[in-house]
């Protein structure tokens, strides 16, 4: 038996970003004893990186805005592959979620009449994004963090213990969801600081772990984004949907190496920034797709005229949708016309005066000055595509956020799939966190409250032991894993050499970047799957030095399992979908296909380890033996009154004739 701490709560929330904290607040307010598990320190979640704003049709700036318009924009952005019910709930509830933040102390930028100011953003018909300068995500996370503290203060006043009803476990990582039969029984994890293992018994678990960007070499995502929630759900038997759709933002920094992937905001292009290759050519004119030919300028003169006189000029091609620009940059670099550091030039200095640039783009000016020694008022920036957002995720019931097939498991935020379809609009992410974070917390609380306290599911001891062996395996040599020895030994005289987890991770990132990246080809993805299989085998031999106290090598070795599982889902689903749509571009199938709109791709785990929660048969090596399989599932037909919000001509681009009747 393993030395494991044990706690019990009504609801456990895994992840302390926007969705996780909103879920925890809701569960606590519904009277449930709630624990929130943060992978980092409290308040450092990736949500802080969000800049633009929270999309909510409050109509403060343009009174014509309403939820129907927001719904339409969201569906168009996702190329109609969205779970329409989620898009509907999201559009309807976002304003309430934003207003609620104000009652918790948030301070958004204001309109002249004192309301929350809203800004324009790509794909949104009206100014819709509530914002605080370019640090909206920080405001969101801090407000939720302070609301948690406020609830803890209430509990302290009542019980004398701040943590009597709402506990934040900082720097803890969950490695398994524990089940009893088909039902959730709790979570298993480790404390980063001490390396101690713990179990939390809880009938309801909310996953809010964010994205998967760290499987890619170039990403705007942080350290934590290793696909933990995606993998936990898979391992617990819940399917993932839409995993082939990954948003690559066209402009991330490419140099210096320390900041490769960090976002360069779209406003740079909106304010006149132009893209040039190493020959000095403004290449975007060569990449205007036929469907957009009428809407975009064909010459530099015409494009330049747009900035001052948009009525009589067409838009410059730099302002094509994100996927188009990202693909164009990718092609230029692959054709050898990239910059010395592998990007293209984005130049705003030729169009705006230095004063104007500093006024309109203060954070970009600061970011390049501080990190790259580049003065964007005088020199061009170097930019390239960067992995930004995972549209896919846990397949959830739209109203309750409950994962399909696993009673007691919920998911919200980036880890949940469906809401954004094949492509997410800017600003819809923060509102997604709040709307579905609250719904997940609410459903989890209701579910936990409805259970007979005496008859709550209890995790099997054998399953806990297996999870403990799995977590400690990287301290063993590759051979000891099977013998389930004490975690004392080092790599022995095994035939296969021990692996360095950092090396395996770097190779994984390279494989995903090169072979399942922004432009995909069938043979490359098949090659990627082979490479992934070999990496998975090598990850099983990863060995770490030192002891369990705050050991980053160990943490990475554990995270590798998740990244590899998720990467396999991405590659398999991407290979299966033989069309191009939103965040999935196939070089060999460049067109969007209306029949594919009716199909969602579900990833599930099959093989010996797939039913890890099934009972005592669970084995520490289960993840290594399980295989991802992809199946097609028909999408629910869109409700008629929602379809009526669109013109028939527009629907014809996306829906098949029989769907339209």
């Amino acid at each position: 038996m393993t030395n494991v701490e044990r706690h019990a709560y009504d609801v456990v929330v895994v992840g302390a970003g926007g969705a996780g904290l909103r879920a925890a607040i809701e569960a606590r307010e519904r009277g449930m004893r709630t624990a929130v598990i943060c992978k980092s320190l409290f308040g450092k979640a990736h949500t802080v990186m969000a800049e633009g704003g929270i999309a909510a049709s409050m109509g403060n700036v343009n009174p014509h805005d309403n939820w129907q318009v927001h719904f339409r924009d969201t569906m168009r952005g996702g190329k109609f592959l969205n779970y329409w019910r989620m898009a509907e709930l999201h559009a309807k509830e976002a304003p309430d979620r934003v207003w609620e933040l104000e009652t918790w102390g948030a301070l958004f930028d204001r309109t002249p009449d004192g309301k929350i100011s809203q800004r324009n953003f790509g794909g949104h018909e009206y100014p819709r994004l509530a914002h605080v300068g370019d640090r909206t995500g920080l405001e969101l996370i801090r407000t939720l963090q302070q609301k948690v503290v406020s609830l803890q203060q209430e509990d302290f006043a009542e019980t004398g213990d701040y943590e009597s009803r709402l506990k934040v476990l900082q720097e803890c990582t969950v490695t398994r969801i524990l089940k009893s039969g088909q039902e959730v029984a709790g979570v298993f994890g480790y404390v980063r600081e001490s390396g101690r293992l713990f179990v939390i018994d809880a009938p309801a678990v909310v996953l809010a772990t964010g994205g998967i960007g760290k499987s890619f070499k170039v990403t705007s995502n942080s350290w934590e984004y290793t696909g933990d929630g995606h993998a936990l759900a898979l391992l617990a038997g819940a399917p993932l949907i839409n995993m082939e759709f990954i948003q690559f933002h066209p402009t991330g920094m490419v140099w210096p190496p320390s900041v490769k992937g960090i976002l360069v905001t779209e406003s740079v292009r909106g304010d006149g920034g132009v893209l040039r290759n190493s020959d000095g050519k403004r290449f975007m004119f060569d990449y205007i797709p036929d469907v957009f030919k009428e809407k975009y300028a064909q010459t530099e003169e015409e494009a330049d005229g747009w900035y001052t006189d948009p009525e009589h000029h067409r838009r410059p091609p730099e302002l094509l949708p994100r996927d188009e620009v990202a693909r164009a940059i990718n092609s230029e670099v692959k054709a050898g016309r990239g910059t010395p550091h592998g990007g293209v030039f984005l130049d705003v200095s030729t169009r705006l005066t230095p004063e104007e640039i500093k006024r309109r783009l203060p954070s970009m000016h600061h970011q390049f000055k501080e990190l790259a020694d580049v003065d964007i008022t005088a020199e061009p920036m170097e930019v390239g595509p960067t992995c930004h957002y995972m549209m896919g995720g846990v397949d959830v019931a739209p109203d309750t956020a409950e994962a399909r097939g696993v009673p007691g498991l919920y998911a919200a935020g980036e880890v949940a799939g469906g809401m954004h379809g094949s492509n997410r609009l800017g600003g819809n992410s923060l509102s997604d966190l709040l709307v579905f974070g609250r719904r997940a917390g609410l459903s989890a609380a209701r579910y936990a409250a409805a259970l007979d306290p005496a008859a709550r599911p209890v995790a099997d001891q054998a399953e806990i032991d297996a999870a403990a062996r799995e977590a400690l395996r990287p301290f063993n040599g590759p051979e000891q894993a099977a013998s389930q020895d004490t975690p004392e030994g080092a790599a022995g005289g095994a035939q296969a050499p021990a692996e360095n987890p950092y090396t395996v991770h770097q190779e994984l990132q390279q494989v995903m970047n090169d072979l399942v990246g922004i432009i995909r080809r069938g043979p490359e993805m098949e090659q990627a799957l082979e490479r992934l299989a070999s990496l998975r085998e090598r990850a099983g031999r990863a060995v770490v030095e030192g002891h369990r106290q705050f050991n980053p090598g160990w943490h990475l070795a554990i995270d590798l399992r998740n990244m590899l599982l998720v990467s396999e889902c991405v590659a398999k689903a991407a290979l299966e979908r033989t069309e191009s749509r939103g965040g999935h571009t196939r070089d060999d199938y460049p067109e969007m296909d209306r029949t594919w709109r009716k199909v969602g791709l579900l990833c599930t785990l099959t093989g010996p380890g797939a039913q890890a929660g099934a009972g005592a048969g669970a084995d520490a090596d289960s993840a290594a033996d399980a295989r991802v399989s992809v199946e097609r599932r028909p999408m629910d037909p869109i409700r008629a009154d929602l379809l009526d919000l669109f013109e028939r001509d527009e629907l014809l681009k996306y829906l098949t004739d029989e769907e339209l009747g």
Partner: protein
Amino acid sequence: MTSYEAHFKVWRGDAEGGDLRDYQVEVNDGEVVLDIVHRLQATQAPDLAVRWNCKAGKCGSCSAEVNGRPRLMCMTRMSVFTRDETVTVTPMRTFPVVRDLVTDVSLNYTKAREVPSFVPPEGVAPGEYRMAQVDVERSQEFRKCIECFLCQNTCHVVRDHDENKPAFSGPRFLMRIAELDMHPLDAAADHGLTRATSAQDDHGLGYCNITKCCTEVCPEQIKITDNALIPLKERAADRKYDPLVWLGSRIRRRGQ
């Protein structure tokens, strides 16, 4: 792309002890100290403990001391050092060390809990909050705080005097009190809480001798001393050291 071998000294150890270890490590163009720490992890010291998240100066995780100065490692470029200079990296020296560059910053979360939260105004429904931009701007500056705790680390009140830790909330949380006191709709006063006097009576504002190290190290360039701490001291003085207010309260007490 040029690269060179730099000499690093990194503190390794835990609460029981430790020392500065020497490393020779490759440095490339444009790198920051955190990149070098990551290279050490990947090549020479896989168990070197360090906190980091965003690597873009937005999350405030990678706080440490570089050549004795409190800094974010992700925002400290290697180009500020000469090639033959030894770069010494230690954990923050005000908080108990956990391991290597990681410290136990729980003191800050304890202090955060002791600051009474925003009190919403009664009778104002969500969606009906009206605030002018000029009225929210002061508090917005303080809300730029990324909670890197470098100000808490550098403040000599607790850095040099462990015994002051219970009584002194530190710059970050005194600034939080200022933020709430300047919030245009905070209704704490209606519930009998005067935030400015409470800052002095309960959170140790008087310990601050405005020597401005918090402002010097703030990676967000928040003017903590000039815009938060000094105004808070003045607001406390309004209440506590203004003879007219003092006389008024005496008379009122006698009348009861």
